[in-house]
Structures are given as structure tokens and as C-alpha cells.
């Protein structure tokens, strides 16, 4: 992947240094400016994201936001707000910001929001086929291949697998799984869910270990870490 270019507008020196470092470590290239007018002078083309503080010397964060959106530029803007007032956030969103983060925040919180913003435009994977580790799920054909060998699944087991695979990496709640895969008249309710999942795990063989139980939530299908 190409290194994402991020414009950081933050007047606090210590915080700017830290954020720049965290983003650089995460594989981003960061242009850091401390003034609102400097930010407006920055060329927008080639930027993948703007991290924008609101209380700035040389203008207000809103001015930068207006400037960016005034040029019809679609670069995502993530506002870093230290004010706990809702009006600031609402105002920022109205002016075209895509997201906001309230200080104090943890760097991983910031990185999660940054990643979410960078990822958004490209949901590349075709919805018809889902690939996870050794397993390929072809939704339309209702076919599951593990190491290229087809696995014979019941209707419920297949629907469960698709429900998990569509949200791979995220935990899926039991009630959500029941709604998506279980017909309440024929297949029972949440209590029978565990039985279906354990059969699914067994049938998937080595791929079955990718299905993990999540305490208090439900199940998660996750590609093994490489």
C-alpha cells in the first residue's frame, strides 16, 4: 500500500510531536503545521487525511475546515477537539468534518479512527466471495472450500459462517447470529446456537479454529495472525 499522507494541524508542541511519532510508527507520512493560516496554505492534493485541532493561532480550526470544503476537496478531516462542548463537534460535522476525537485520547484510539477514515473508500472485497486463511466462502454458490476441498454444511451452519465471515475480525452478537441464520420455528433459539457453532467448527477442521467464542458477546471469525 502507498504510504498515506496526513496533514496534522496542532499547535501544542508536545502533543504534535507525539501524534506525529505515533502516526509515523504506524506507517504514515506526516506534514505537521502549527498555525491555521499555515494549514490553509498547504496544498490539498495528495493528502489522504487532515487531523485538525480547533483552537489554533492564526485562525480557528473551523476556518481551515471552511477553506478545505470551499475548494470542494473531499479529503477526510478528523477533528481533534479538547472542548467537551457538543456544539463544537456538531459545528465541525456541519462544516464538513468526517469524524472527531475528544482529548484526552489514547494513540491507539487515534490510530483506529485514522485507519477507519483511510480504509473507508475502498471496500475492495467482492461480496460474493470471502477468503479467510485456508478457507474460501462463495456465498452465491453456497459453497465452502477449506484447502480447496469442499465442506458439506447444513443451511444453518452455512448461514452462520457467512454471518461471521462478512464481519471477519469483529465479534458478532448471539442475537444477531440467531436473526441471520436461525429460523425460530425450525432451528430453535439462542440456546441451540452453541450446538450449531460447535458442529460448524468440527466440520471446518483446521479452519474451525478461526471461530472463537467471545465472552458475553457471541462469536468471532478471525484470520490467524501471520
Amino acid at each position, binding site marked *: 500500500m502507498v504510504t498515506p499522507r496526513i496533514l496534522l494541524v496542532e499547535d501544542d508542541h508536545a502533543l504534535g510531536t507525539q501524534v506525529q511519532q505515533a502516526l509515523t510508527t504506524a506507517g504514515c507520512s506526516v506534514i505537521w503545521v502549527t498555525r491555521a493560516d499555515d494549514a490553509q496554505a498547504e496544498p490539498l492534493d495528495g493528502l489522504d487525511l487532515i487531523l485538525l485541532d480547533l483552537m489554533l493561532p492564526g485562525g480557528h480550526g473551523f476556518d481551515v475546515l471552511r477553506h478545505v470544503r470551499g475548494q470542494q476537496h473531499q479529503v477526510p478531516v478528523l477533528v481533534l477537539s479538547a472542548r*467537551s462542548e457538543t456544539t463544537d463537534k456538531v459545528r465541525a460535522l456541519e462544516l464538513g468534518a468526517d469524524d472527531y476525537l475528544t482529548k*484526552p485520547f489514547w494513540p491507539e484510539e487515534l490510530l483506529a479512527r485514522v485507519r477507519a477514515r483511510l480504509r473507508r473508500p475502498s471496500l475492495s472485497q467482492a461480496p460474493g466471495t470471502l477468503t479467510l486463511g485456508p478457507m474460501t466462502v462463495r456465498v452465491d454458490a453456497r459453497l465452502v472450500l477449506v484447502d480447496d476441498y469442499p465442506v458439506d454444511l447444513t443451511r444453518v451452519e452455512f448461514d452462520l459462517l457467512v454471518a461471521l465471515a462478512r464481519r471477519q475480525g469483529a465479534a458478532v452478537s448471539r442475537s444477531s447470529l440467531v436473526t441471520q441464520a436461525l429460523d425460530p420455528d425450525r432451528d430453535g433459539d439462542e440456546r441451540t446456537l452453541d450446538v450449531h457453532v460447535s458442529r460448524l467448527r468440527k466440520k471446518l477442521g483446521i479452519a474451525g479454529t478461526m471461530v472463537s467464542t*467471545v465472552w458475553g*458477546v457471541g462469536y468471532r471469525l478471525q484470520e490467524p495472525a501471520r
Partner: protein
Amino acid sequence: MTLRTRLMVTTLAVAVPLAAGLFLFAERTRIADMQASIDRALETGSCGPGSEGPRSRVPPRGAQRAPLEVHPYTDGFVSARPDGRGPEFPSELRAQLATTDRASSAWTTPEGRGRQTAVRLSAGSAPCQILLARMRPRPGELRERMVGLGAIVFVVMLAVTIAAGPTLARIRRLSDAVRSSTSRAQNTDITMSGNDEVTGLASAFNQARRQVRTHLDEVEARERTLREFVANTTHDVAVPLTVLQTHLSALEQTAADDEVSARVRDAMREAHYMGSLLRNLSAASRLDGGVPIDARPLDLAALVERVVARHQPLARASGVDLNMAIPSVPIVVHADATLAEQAVGNLVDNAIRYNHPGGHVAVVLDHSPPSDPVSGFVLRVSDDGVGVEAAELPQLATRRFRGGAARSRRPDGQGLGLAIVSEAATAFGWQLLLKANTPTGLLAELRGPSTKAPTKP
């Protein structure tokens, strides 16, 4: 009782006895007058046929019977008229005449109370020994009197009403003016024309209002300053705290040995705690400050994701497994973003804080079951931590309360956490339910109305 009613009742209470007294007085005068006429008639009366005696029993219609009539009687109380057609002698007078020569009594007639007097004539004045003179009221006299009295009462009432009317209207106008001036936008004095007690009342009210307003302005200014102060302090603390958190986060990843790593985690927990105190402080100052809740549509799923991301470092530092599940479509609720985030954050924060290494916290957001009357969301935050005594559950969401044994393991700030959840929930029209989780821990549930937003393209 309104002033008008009271006035009417009072007037009636005075006017009616007064009228009755007048009536009695007039009646007395009338009787005295009748008696005088009777006495005059008797003085000149003789045994001849009553000059004004009835000519026929039934007078022609419209003709008035003579008010005064004189009848002669014999000693045996038998009519001494030649035709013997005089009225029967009244029995009450007959009894009185046994002892005296002159007797009087009331005479009941269809026209009202009349008067009758009988005298025993001196001996030898044959052919009659007793003369009876009686006088009836003028026909319609009684009715006239009653009408007259009624008119007096009516006129008095009318006079009182007319006299009190303008004052009552002024009082009503004053109370309208006072009522409309209680709205905060209205800042002008009440003006009442004239120079009476109502004007005095208005000016007294204006004075009082100005004092209250001045006092209120002072309080508001002080409150605004305080809120500003909290907001500015929050800002001033938030920036270095973020720097601190970033340092700690970097340290955690590079910690050389277990001891250092444990210390860093402790420091991370404290930093997170400071952050949550800061947020709760400003949330509480907003809930208390009477600032209107800025409720707008927002995606609760994204909010939950954001809150869970914020608490992952705390969970990791505490050795607690924090997981969440959200629906793939946005759940749109009407709420103030900051307060809602803080409310959900406090539930997650509590679940991690009152837990133990190896414990779990699960945050599950879902649409409410289709059986619910209103489509909405259900957010459950469950943990398998220390939990709360069943008896303490109801008070848990009140301010300054911390569960006795379990939840006061450390001095937990101002005990604001769940109170803010509860107050924010009330403000958004959500329900907060806290119950014991099985086998241990706490289950907190938020429910409220929501709409399913179309999936973003």
C-alpha cells in the same frame, strides 16, 4: 372564591337584612296609619248601615273594594244591619271584648295583613252595641313593596359591581402582566395607569422583580464563569494528558521487563482514570448547568465503537478482555453526542474498573426485538467482575453513591459515573437497567428509541 363573588356575597349579606329591616319599619308605619284611619272612622261611626260597607259580595272586576269598612253588631255579636248580612264577628276580638271595651287585632285578607278594631258603645246607643271597623291594605300594595325592596337590593348590587368593576379589571390586568413578565425574555417593567393600590402593587412587584433579576443575573454570571472555567480547565488538562497517554502507550510497547511493564500499566490506568474524571466533570457541569441538551441524530453503533476503542488501553492495562458487537447498519438515535458518549463510556469504564485480571467485559449493541412496541436499540454492558450487592442496585445510579464493599476498593472520584449515565438517559428518554449478572458481575442495559439508517454506500 374570587374577589367578585366575595364582594357579591358580602353585599347580599348586608343588603338583605337592611331590606328586611326597612320592610318591617314600613310595615309598622302602615299598621299605625291604618289604626289611625280606623280610630277616626270609629269616632264618627254610628250604627247606621256602613257608609262604606260592601254593596255586594263580589265586586265587579277591576273595581277596588273600599279599604275601610264599618260594621255594627248587637251585644250578642250578631250583625246589627237591617239585612243582617254583615261579616261574622272575629272570634279573637270577641274574647278580648269580654274584658275591655276596645280590642284590636290583625286582619288577614287576600290582599295582605289588614287591621281591625272593635269598640263597645256606651249603653243606650241602640240599635247596635258594638262597632267593628276594619281596614284592608290597598290591593297590590304588598307586591309593590316587595318589588321596591328587590329593586333596592338590585340597585345596591349593581352599584357595588360598577364601583368594583374597574378595580377588578385592573387587578386582572396586573396579574396578566405579572404572568407574562415571568417569561425570561420579557424584561420590561409592568406599567399600570392610575394611582391606587393596584398601581402600588405593580410598582412593588417591579421592585421585587428587579431585585430577583439582579440576583439571578449574578448567579447566572457566576455559573457561566464556573462553566467556562471547567471548560477551559478541561481543555488545559486534556492536552498534556493526551501527551502523557501517548508516552505511556509507547512505553508499554517497549517495556523491558515485567516489573516495568506492570508499573506502566498502573500509570496507564491512572491516566485513564484522570481522563474519565475530566470528562465526567464537564458532563456533570453541563447536566447541572441547565444548558439545554443538544440532541441530534447520531449513529450509536459508531459511538459504541469509539468508546470501546478508547477503553481498550485501560482494559489491556487491567488484564481485562474487552469485546464488543455492533450491528452492521448504523443505529440512529437522538442524543447529545458528548453526553451519550460519556454515558456509554462510564458503563464500560465501570465494568473494566470493577473487575479483575482475567475478567471479561462485553459491550453488545443490537436492535430491540421485533416484539417491542417501538423500534429501538438495546445496549448491554456486562462483566464478570465483583458485581454489586442486590440491595445496593437501586441507589447505584444516584450521585455520590459508591457500592459499599465492592465498588469502594478505591476512592472513585465523586461517584459520578452511573449518576451521569442515569441523568443522561433520562434526558434522552432512555431507560437504564442495572442488574446482577450470573454468576458474578453487573449487567447494565440501556434501551431507547432509534431508527435504522440505510447502509452507507
